[in-house]
């Protein structure tokens, strides 16, 4: 029933609209075409000016509403450069925006047809003007490109040798993070060895470097403040993307290809909670490449912490091998520091016995 009422209402609205349209046509007939046209023309010219003013007010309001929610606080050095560059680009484009929109609406008002058959100014071309407004944008663009490329090469440069290497692998629909463990080497992986229950990343157990690797499956990436971290980014299935709004970074995770990015976090998560006055603050990893139905929930987090906290956290972690082969690890979990070295030997034994 309600559907019929809605349909009836919609039809009614269209009939009303139609009548409005018709009425205006009759008005033209009754009052003379020229007169109506002239009146409509000046009314619309005024309306356009009103639109422009409302638009400017709206931009101001938007700025007031959003000024605290624009770029999140940059938590790394390249992020600060990013914000500076963003500001320059806003200034350049902002000047052009306001100038051209103002001119557009001002001309509309100034040169409206008043019905007095004024002859227009026949002005078909001017090479001088064309040269001016070709050169100025070209110079402005050159400057922006120069700033951009400096930052771009900065961001994409080779990571410093002391950078901590961490592997982050996307899968539908979460992030797997692998730390190299004591030996600081990530072991070999093979996608054919992946097993969702026992070997989520397909670690090759014949590579001893794998024995001490730690895999975090809750999407938490722990990094040390003021120490560069280099991410090796991969995907198990479809294309994902490691998006880090607070670090102004983004890089695709492509199956079959390893991509990288590096950055140096400068603010710990705890400090950030105080800066933002948000006790729930957390650095988030957002998947930025459509990857299927759970794309919107493919969330990871980054915990930026001091070296001491990091070491403490790392020591509390079990190696992936130990976690999945409890029988092969005789050492009680009470001494986690020891079990990172021990299972290495055991695992070799286990593999040879297989």
């Amino acid at each position, binding site marked *: 029933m309600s559907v019929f009422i809605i349909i009836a209402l919609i039809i009614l609205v269209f009939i009303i609209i*139609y009548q*409005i*349209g018709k*009425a205006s*046509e009759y008005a033209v007939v009754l009052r003379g075409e020229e007169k109506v046209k002239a009146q*409509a023309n000046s009314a619309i*010219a005024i309306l356009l000016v009103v639109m422009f003013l409302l638009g400017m007010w*709206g931009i101001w309001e*938007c700025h007031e509403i959003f000024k605290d929610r*624009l*770029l999140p606080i940059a938590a790394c050095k390249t992020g600060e450069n990013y914000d500076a560059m963003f500001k320059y*680009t806003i200034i*350049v*484009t902002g000047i052009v925006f306001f100038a*051209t*929109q103002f*001119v*557009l609406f001002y*001309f*509309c008002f100034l*040169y409206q*047809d008043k019905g007095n*058959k004024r*002859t*227009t*100014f*026949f*002005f*078909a*071309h001017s090479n001088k003007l064309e040269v001016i407004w070709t050169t100025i*944008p*070209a110079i402005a*663009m050159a400057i922006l490109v120069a700033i*951009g490329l400096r930052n*771009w090469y900065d*961001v994409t440069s080779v990571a410093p040798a002391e950078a901590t290497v961490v592997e982050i692998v996307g899968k539908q629909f979460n992030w797997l993070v692998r730390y190299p463990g004591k030996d600081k080497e990530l072991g070999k992986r093979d*996608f*054919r060895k992946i097993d969702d229950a026992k070997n989520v990343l*397909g670690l090759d157990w014949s590579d001893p470097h794998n024995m001490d690797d730690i895999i975090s499956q809750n999407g938490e990436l722990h990094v040390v403040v003021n120490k560069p971290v280099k991410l090796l980014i991969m995907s*198990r299935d*479809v294309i994902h*993307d490691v*998006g880090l*709004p607070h670090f102004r970074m*983004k890089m*695709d995770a*492509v199956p*079959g*290809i390893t991509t*990288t990015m590096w950055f140096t976090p400068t603010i710990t998560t705890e400090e950030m909670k105080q800066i933002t006055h948000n006790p729930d*603050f957390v650095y*988030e990893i*957002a*998947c*930025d*490449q*459509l990857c299927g*139905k759970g*794309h919107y929930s493919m*969330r990871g987090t980054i915990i930026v912490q001091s070296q001491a906290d990091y070491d403490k956290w790392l020591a509390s972690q079990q190696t992936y091998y130990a976690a999945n082969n409890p029988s092969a690890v005789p050492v009680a979990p009470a001494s986690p520091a020891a079990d990172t070295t021990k299972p290495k030997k055991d695992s070799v034994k286990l593999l040879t016995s297989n």
Partner: protein
Amino acid sequence: MNNEAINIGGSLVAHGADSSAGHHDHEHHEQHFIWKYVFSQDHKIISKQFLITGITWAIIGALMSVFFRLQLGFPDSTFPIMEKFLGDWAKGGKLTPEFYYALVTMHGTILVFFVLTAGLSGTFANLLIPLQVGARDMASPFMNMLSYWFFFAASILMFVSLFVETGPASGGWTTYPPLSALKEASLGSGVGMDLWLLSMSLFVVSSLLGGLNYIATVLNMRTAGMTMTRLPLTIWALFFTAVLGVLSFPVLFSGLVLLIFDRNFGTSFYLSEIFIGGKALPHVGGSAILYQHLFWFLGHPEVYIIMLPGMGMASEVLSTHSRKPIFGYFAMIISLVGITLLAFLVWAHHMFVTGMSPFLGSIFVLLTLLIAVPSAVKVFNWLTTIWRGNIRFNPPMLFALGFVSLFISGGLTGIFLGNSALDIHLHDTYFVVAHFHIVMGVSAFFGMFAGVYHWFPKMYGRFMNNTLGYIHFFITFAGAYLIFWPMHYEGIAGMPRRYYDYSAWESFKHFQGVNAFISIVATIVFFTQLVFVFNFFMSIFRGRKVTNPNPWGSTTLEWTTPINPGHGNWPGAIPEVHRWPYDYKDDGHGGDFIPQTEPLRDGEEAH
């Protein structure tokens, strides 16, 4: 002359001449309804077919956006009305994530390809090229008819894909593999994706048949005196649009064919080292990035395929309705050439974060920002065109002015995204959504609306209603900014696009209020578009009749035809052209324009 012309028009056409007088709908010659209105070879009928199919698709595509905007704006609410439309996909009035992505994908595909490519250049290239260059019809009316019917077949397949059990394609309008290649990866990668690929392949065929025809017609069928430098800018723009399509659509086609192979025949062009659905796939050695190169080699020119017709029509409309010549005719052509060339050299700016070589990235930054130069030239020329004009604010002019305003706003944000160092944060956020919706979505639509309101009298011999046109313009113009302006802020904060729900995200959940606001405005604007649709169809039958064959006082050739031209366009000889198309100046008898057919007066300088 008549018979000669009719032969050009194809053997099915009867008398081109007798339709000059009399009513369009009730011509009394022997042509059957089917050949006249359905399998027609008349470019004017084909253009109307493209337009009406485009309008139908636009309503469907826009309605989809209303549905997913409801989800985005009100993730905690249910809308039982959606269940009426979408059935189990919106059980209880709430979209499933799968179908949310399917809607987003289809919205993009439909609007980009079916509406703003076929609906826009299909309509106006067909209508305007023969009329404005002075030809009886296209170079090959038969191919032209095929172009529409291939598009129609593509439309049918795409429409069918909406009803398959696993839903239509849902990997985004770009359909990146492996997501689109593997049935295990998402529901939409099943039959829906096969239909998408088939439909798009037919679409490419349609586009090529049309494009080759447009190019051939512009190059070969211009009337006496119509040199290339006397062509209206609409024709230049449509010509370059066709060139872009002809050179880039085949590349998309090859990309799609490889994807079909990967999906069905076990090849590994795009697939490598994948573990999905609990097992490792045998594919090794392919590159998912290859598809992106092939896709964006079309995908970027595609945005200019969408923009150029609007630019051409805005140039024409701005000049006509401000009673002034277009400023910098040659600069306009050169900037079109520049945009066309650069359009082929910037595709990888969509791929800055795919891990491509930073050096290669920097080349694409340079080339991308170069496009700002010809674009800026065009804007300044438009502004100078209305300077000291006599502006008549009728609906086509308002939409052309709106086009310029939106083109500026949307173009400027491209400077952020084209610069890889800024893109690295803004990539795939709402900033991108805002940018391309303003510049190639709304702005291109405004160009299209300007064209429809301006050439409606030529198409149907009637006017569209002005008052409804004004209502349509002001609400759409304000609405476009209200919808897309706030999205920039969301994007600057890093809010990713293509998310079903943001409430679990600490960094983005505070934009909920903004999202609700955007959704409300989007719904209002959707209904406002129905006012246009209503106006369009009512005016075909009930609109005020055109009495003056040249109602806008325009200089170009289409207004020298009868009010309701028959097949063949001119009842007598095709007029000869003596001057450029923008002589809006004193004609010596109190008029303010001189048609192209008027010979130069004594002592008058050619442009």
